[in-house]
């Protein structure tokens, strides 16, 4: 029914002689597709993001997750879908507000408006079947919503999605998402062949008929847009030439684990960590790897520890509540020096908290969660690419230092989709099989090097290495030992390893000038938003820099020295802190951001903080405001 296959600019535009088309050129543009859950908006968003990445745009995709599990239809709480931010260059975060929003009903659109998610001047494409609906209440809701949306500079376009879709499918609920994709494809001039390929990939488990139907709907939406819209958006691709892969952070963790040579993952399902195991479940067996779904998180930790103890480093994946359950086992691994990698995909807490939403509130729990003195390594991935590479680093550190390495990611990284440089796989990443050669006579299982605390571990099967590993205090021969000097020494040995790791780390690189008025310090997934804000601030002439930390335990070196070059240092984090002027809050009792807490303790610098727990990633525009209001008064340093 349609001929616009290649979708090159000129071809399509020349066909449209009947109306003038305005082309908006922008280096960064944000799109949202929202619907009731189950209407497929997410699939539409994912395909749009993937196609844009393939065309050479920078892309960041995040899911818009309904506030309720089973919200009623057409309710603001049910808004579900995707935000896709595309750019000429790399896109590092979800941005502030959307410039285009496709909504399957006016209620979900209003929901986004109320969350301040829509930019003034945005192009809003809304399903119009509700306007003249036979249900009087619905018509009234429509009118009220349209009134609410008035006066914000939005460009609202009513689209007969249902009506058009019903010309090719019986149930439009199952097809609107592809119609919407077609409209977006026209607006952003997406390559239709690539789009069809992506549809084929997305529905690869479905029949050919499903694919055909979806492509027909795509073309229908494309055609409708070309005939009825008078604006197109051009975000020129700037990333061509680089070899990229596109995936979300959990997929990157899964691939990273394989690239790191790990062979066993043990887990118990928990949002937002679970999808790591979904990805692994599809590929791990091809590498001889096992994903073990244990009976609970405790058992998952135990299975991973048992596997690590007897061979290659294994890992376990979890989120807050599961991490709490693993605590005792982590203490055992630290005490008995069994290497282990733990991934904590953070969500909102405490307790069951906000299962699907981003937060950075596990930092101190991962550092200090084990009763007793339990030194171990904590790292945080800042980007989706780092989710991949952290696994390689974590595995290597765990092995070299015979310790537990916790890698923090979060719901923002877990569900954000971004293209990144394709890793050039290196055999070294995979590590070697454990050394199984006979143990020289008399060599003890904790042959601690006095200076470094390091020792070689013996693995079952290794002749001459027999010993009983224990979580009780033990001497170098792993004999239970309660003598005070032995406990003092073995504690020192376990702690020393972290100092040695610290000595191998480089001081972090300051983003921006090396000194100035304000230094913003962050960790984890906020990197993109913080750096975008800092860049904007610098463009406005403000003396601001930022620093992003990957190692939290041990902390990266040189921090005190860097901090002293700035008039003010503050962290920006997604966890809870009191505002200094809140009731009852004083300097002494103020709860601070978790990184701020650590930095103050470790550097004795008066590090301030600004944190929020809004259940959404930080917005660069908001951080910019924070920067402006936190600049120390009284001129440049």
């Amino acid at each position, binding site marked *: 029914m349609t001929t616009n296959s290649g979708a090159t600019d000129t071809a399509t535009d020349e066909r449209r002689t009947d109306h003038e088309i305005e082309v908006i050129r922008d280096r960064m543009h944000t799109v949202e597709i929202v619907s009731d859950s189950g209407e497929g908006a997410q699939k539409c968003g994912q395909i749009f993001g993937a196609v844009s990445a393939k065309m*050479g745009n920078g892309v960041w995709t995040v899911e818009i997750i309904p506030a309720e599990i089973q919200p009623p239809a057409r309710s603001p709480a049910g808004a579900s879908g995707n935000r896709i931010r595309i750019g000429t260059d790399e896109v590092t975060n979800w941005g502030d507000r959307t410039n285009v929003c496709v909504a399957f009903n006016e209620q979900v659109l209003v929901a986004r408006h109320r969350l301040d998610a829509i930019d003034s001047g945005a192009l809003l494409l809304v399903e119009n079947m509700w306007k003249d609906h036979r249900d009087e209440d619905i018509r009234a809701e429509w009118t009220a919503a349209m009134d609410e949306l008035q006066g914000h500079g939005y460009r609202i376009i009513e689209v007969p999605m249902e009506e058009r879709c019903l010309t090719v499918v019986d149930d439009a609920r199952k097809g609107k998402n592809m119609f919407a994709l077609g409209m977006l494809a026209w607006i952003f001039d997406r390559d239709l062949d690539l789009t069809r390929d992506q549809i084929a*990939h997305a529905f690869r488990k479905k029949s050919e008929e499903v694919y055909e139907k979806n492509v027909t709907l795509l073309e229908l939406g494309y055609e409708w847009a070309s005939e009825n819209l008078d604006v197109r958006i051009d975000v020129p691709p700037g990333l061509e030439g680089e*070899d*990229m*892969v*596109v995936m979300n952070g959990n*997929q990157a963790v899964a*691939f990273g684990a*394989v690239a790191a*040579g790990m*062979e*066993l993952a*043990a887990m118990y399902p928990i949002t937002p960590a679970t999808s790591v195991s979904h990805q692994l479940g599809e590929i791990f*067996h*091809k*590498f*001889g790897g*096992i994903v*073990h779904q244990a*009976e*609970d998180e*405790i*058992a*998952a930790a*135990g*299975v991973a*520890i*048992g*596997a690590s*103890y*007897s*061979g*290659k480093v*294994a890992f376990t994946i979890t989120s807050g509540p599961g991490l709490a359950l693993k605590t*005792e*086992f982590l203490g*055992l691994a630290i005490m008995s020096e069994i290497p282990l990698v733990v991934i904590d995909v953070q969500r909102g807490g405490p307790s069951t908290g906000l299962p699907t939403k981003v937060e950075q509130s596990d930092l101190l729990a991962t550092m200090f969660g084990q009763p007793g003195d339990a030194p171990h390594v904590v790292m945080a991935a800042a980007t989706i690419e780092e989710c991949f590479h952290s696994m390689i680093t974590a595995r290597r550190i765990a092995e070299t230092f015979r310790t537990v390495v916790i890698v923090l990611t979060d719901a923002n990284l877990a569900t954000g989709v971004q*293209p990144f440089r*394709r*890793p050039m*796989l290196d*055999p070294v990443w*995979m590590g070697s*099989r*454990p050394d*199984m050669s006979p143990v020289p006579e008399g060599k003890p299982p904790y042959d601690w090097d006095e200076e470094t605390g390091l020792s070689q571990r*013996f693995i*079952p*099967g*290794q*002749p*001459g*290495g*027999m*010993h*009983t*590993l*224990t*979580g009780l205090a033990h001497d170098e021969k792993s*004999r239970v030992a309660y003598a005070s000097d032995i406990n003092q020494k073995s504690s020192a040995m376990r702690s020393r390893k972290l100092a040695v790791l610290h000595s191998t780390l480089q001081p972090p690189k300051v983003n921006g000038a090396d000194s100035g008025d304000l230094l913003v310090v962050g960790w984890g997934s906020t990197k993109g938003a913080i750096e975008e804000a800092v860049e904007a601030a610098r463009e406005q002439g403000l003396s601001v820099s930022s620093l992003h930390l990957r190692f939290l335990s041990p902390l990266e070196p040189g921090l005190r020295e860097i901090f002293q070059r700035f008039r003010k240092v503050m962290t920006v984090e997604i966890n809870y802190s009191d505002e200094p002027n809140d009731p009852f809050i004083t300097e002494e009792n103020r709860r601070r951001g978790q990184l701020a807490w650590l930095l103050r303790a470790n550097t004795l610098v008066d590090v301030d903080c600004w944190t929020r727990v809004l259940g959404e990633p930080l917005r660069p525009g908001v951080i910019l405001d924070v920067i402006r209001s936190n600049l120390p008064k009284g001129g440049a340093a």
Partner: protein
Amino acid sequence: MSGHSCSLLFPVEDDREYSMSDYQGAQARWCPGCGDHSVLTATQRLLASEQLKPEETVFVSGIGCSSRFPHYVSSYGFHGIHGRALPVATGIKLHRPDLHVFVVMGDGDCTSIGAAHWLHATRYNVDMVALMLDNNIYGLTKMQTSPTTPEGYRSNTQPMGSFLPALNPIEATLGVTNASFVAQTAEWMPAHLYATLEAAYKHNGFSFVRILQRCPVFTGDIYQDAVRNPDMIEMLEHPDGVEVPDLHQIYQNISRHDPRNMDAARELAEKMDRIRVGVFFRDESRPRYEETRHLPLHTTDEKIGILNEELDKYAV
């Protein structure tokens, strides 16, 4: 249970003979008269008789008096945390099916804090021997009620006597889908204990053995009558389970029980009139988790090749 004799990781040709003393670890520190001593001896006898290489044998335990066991065996040992020996053993066996894995737990360890793992390990049916040393009490922490403490029996936490009927571990294990070997024996019957350990070791799958164990310090009276009066014992015998003809003189209640018969096994397990020892149930045809999950290993180069193919699917 029997580990695969050839290991992928270390082809060692070793003709040496192991005697019982080769499995002697640290000096056992259990109380004099503690039933754990006799389990240790029987186990070491089994190791010698099966000539298991100490370096290819792993004893995994939790926390408790009984969980000190690995320290007293000269093999690889893993003395972990309370209640969690089974997940660790599962991890070892999943990653290294070539190893011989023995698990030693107390009654609190296995049936209370570790109960979830007990149930699931039974269902996973991973090839290992799991010994539950049941003294009906928490020994290490000094006499608190355990799930297997007899109703009315006084302890430090329930000084008026245990409030509920004791949990029956054999009945419970038999109730788990995919259970493949369920046996009971008593440490004061060394010949029976040995025969049961041997059968458990030879069984391919998860061999659960409840060993009635005297704790002279806290529950000295519980098994006293049974020790003195062989009439209180009934031996379940079958060529496919255990048969200990040497004991027929002393223990005259002998019944033939085919361990393939689950209904009969459950019926016997429920009966409280006598203490029944022997193999209640055994079925080697049950799927073993580590076998269903077993995959060939790949070289690093092969893995990189496959990984690149997978990454191609995500290429931009």
